[in-house]
């Protein structure tokens, strides 16, 4: 319902597709994703090469880059939707669907392999009951591979919600995951889905 209203907002901008009028209209959109995206675009669209900064900011605010944001971005930057979609899907960091509450990234590059990251990755999969690029059934963790965190002298390494951890054993990983959930439940009041993977 909200989405339909938003589209009519854009259409009612008098044929000014891609122009400043469309961006003004989008900022007033009833669809939060479109309004947020338009607000970000108003701030960043005049940067040289604005697309990556815009996508980072949208994902930071919304937790992902939803389909409705793509249209708004394309119009504001005078790109086709296909071009924006192409960029989003080229870069592993960008996601079209929101991640779980927390993101666990396990390094799978050579240095970590030399120190047992493959058994660690197997443990993470078993523990969360999901494969890479997927989320645990309870919605707590998204599991992602990462190819090097720059902690190669302290392999194997993982990152949880942007915080690095080194020399991780399966036991240490279990403790880190439990600690992440404990801390989250301490802040139940302001608990919102993680926005940065």
């Amino acid at each position, binding site marked *: 319902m909200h989405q339909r209203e938003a589209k009519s907002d854009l259409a009612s901008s008098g044929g000014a597709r891609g122009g400043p009028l469309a961006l003004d209209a989008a900022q007033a959109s009833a669809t939060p994703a479109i309004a947020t995206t338009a607000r970000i675009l108003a701030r960043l669209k005049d940067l040289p090469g604005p697309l990556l900064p815009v996508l980072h900011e949208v994902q930071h605010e919304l937790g992902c880059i939803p389909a409705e944001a793509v249209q708004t971005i394309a119009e504001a930057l005078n790109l086709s939707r296909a071009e924006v979609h192409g960029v989003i899907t080229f870069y592993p960091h960008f996601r079209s669907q929101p991640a779980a509450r927390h993101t666990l990234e396990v390094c799978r590059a050579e240095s970590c392999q030399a120190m047992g990251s493959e058994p660690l990755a197997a443990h993470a999969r078993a523990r969360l009951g999901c494969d890479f690029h997927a989320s645990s059934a309870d919605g707590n963790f998204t599991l992602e591979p990462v190819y*090097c965190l720059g902690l190669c002298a302290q392999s194997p390494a993982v990152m949880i919600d942007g915080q690095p951890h080194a020399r991780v054993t399966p036991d240490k990983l279990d403790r880190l995951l439990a600690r992440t959930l404990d801390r989250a439940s301490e802040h139940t009041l302001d608990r919102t889905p993680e926005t940065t993977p």
Partner: protein
Amino acid sequence: MSAPIVIYVPRDAAALAMDADAVAHEIERIADERGVAVQVVRNGSRGLLWLEPLVEVVTHDGRVAYGPVAPEDVADLFDAGWLSPGNGDSKATPKTASSHPLCLGLTEAIPYLKHQERLTFARVGVIDPLSLQDYAAHGGLAGLKRALAMEPAAIIDEMVTSGLRGRGGAAFPTGIKWKTVAGTPSDQKYIVCNADEGDSGTFADRLLMEGDPYVLIEGMTIAGLAVGASYGYIYVRSEYPHAIATLEAAIARARSVGWLGADVHGSGRRFDLEVRKGAGAYICGEETSLLESLEGKRGVVRAKPPLPAISGLFGKPTVINNVISLATVPIILAKGANYYRDYGVGRSHGTLPFQLAGNLKQGGLVEKAFGLSLRDLLYEFGGGSASGRPLRAVQVGGPLGAYLPESQWDVPLDYEAYIQISAMIGHGGLVAFDDTVDMARMARYAMEFCAIESCGKCTPCRIGSTRGVETIDKIAAPGADARQREQQVPLLRDLCDTMMGGSLCALGGMAPYPVLSALNHFPQDFGIESSQSAAHAA
């Protein structure tokens, strides 16, 4: 009231990954409880990464190191008297708790550090990375001040004379690149810093950006003066959130005191820069792909020519250099080209920050002049394997670098000597493996990685890497008979040849290096006779 005791607790991601924040917090809490006045400074990492968090206490004799310190060790260190008044002239110089098992003595006297030749990394781990005063007090800005008094052409001559070659891996002479940009007329030119350090086994860029960001800013400013560029971008991978935060804070502070902006150091010259964040694509470490990404496109490799030096970012002449190359510029200008040139061997001048990673007891950063051997790094510095098993193979230069067997560990680390053995020094990262490694599996991984990260523009890389995985699977399959292997090995070599000769950039062009080196040096892991492999390798 005497001055507080100064304690250094690193803020580098390598220390944070081992709970450095909790250690710093615990030190402040217990000091407060026991009524000891302390000032905790968050420095960069000294690069002795097996000792992180490496806590240092300033004493009368110098900085005394303790490590690796876990939060639960802190109370014990207080009990051992690490902050007790010493023989110095004030309370601010405690004695050394040398009886404590974590005490390492004076930091500068630790052999791992003492035997290094730190030029680019001179300040990393020593200073508070964001303190403008610390930077200036430890030799910062000397290079820029000299450059401001020089003609642009003289700065470039200095760079050419220094012999500095691109530290990102390609080893192209930095001065020559600058000369091309300087000689290309344009209303706008750019300095781009490649901080997309995606190679496994490398972390020098990260340590530098988190430990001494102003040296990178200074180096980029000098590059701007030399070629006539007024704006710069630092493209940092999104996997390095702490480096990004440190750089952004440093740039803001530098701007606020006029180190960046419309009037750099009151010279009337303009230079400013910003950080741009990558998004997880390994290929964006390739320079033309990085430029595409900065322009807001998919990171697809560009065909060369035109060189970025002539038509780079937004079609303008662009200097694109690695973090370490740019961060080495200030010391070259400060101490003179010949000072830097005198380090090293042959045509490999200066020093390289080697990164010891993987299965090593003492992993970390070792900045040394070119010419030492891998064996020195692995045993003198690295202390042998972490697992206690014999080392078997070392991958030098990242995921596209060759695996070297023990017979090649005495070759001097020198760009040309490495090319002769079909290997590359690259960004100076080395990943050690013990004798449990399955080299056929590592060869397969090299192809698999290439398939995951290929930008897809050229066929040898896009398709070849997937065919490579399949072919290695056929060779190394447990059920494969000798005849099947015999047929597949020449196919794999042929495929590697196509990739090396036909790929547009180093990803497809060099992914065969780890594959072929594994096949040539460790044929038994593929289930083939060494004689057959040697015949092909010859």
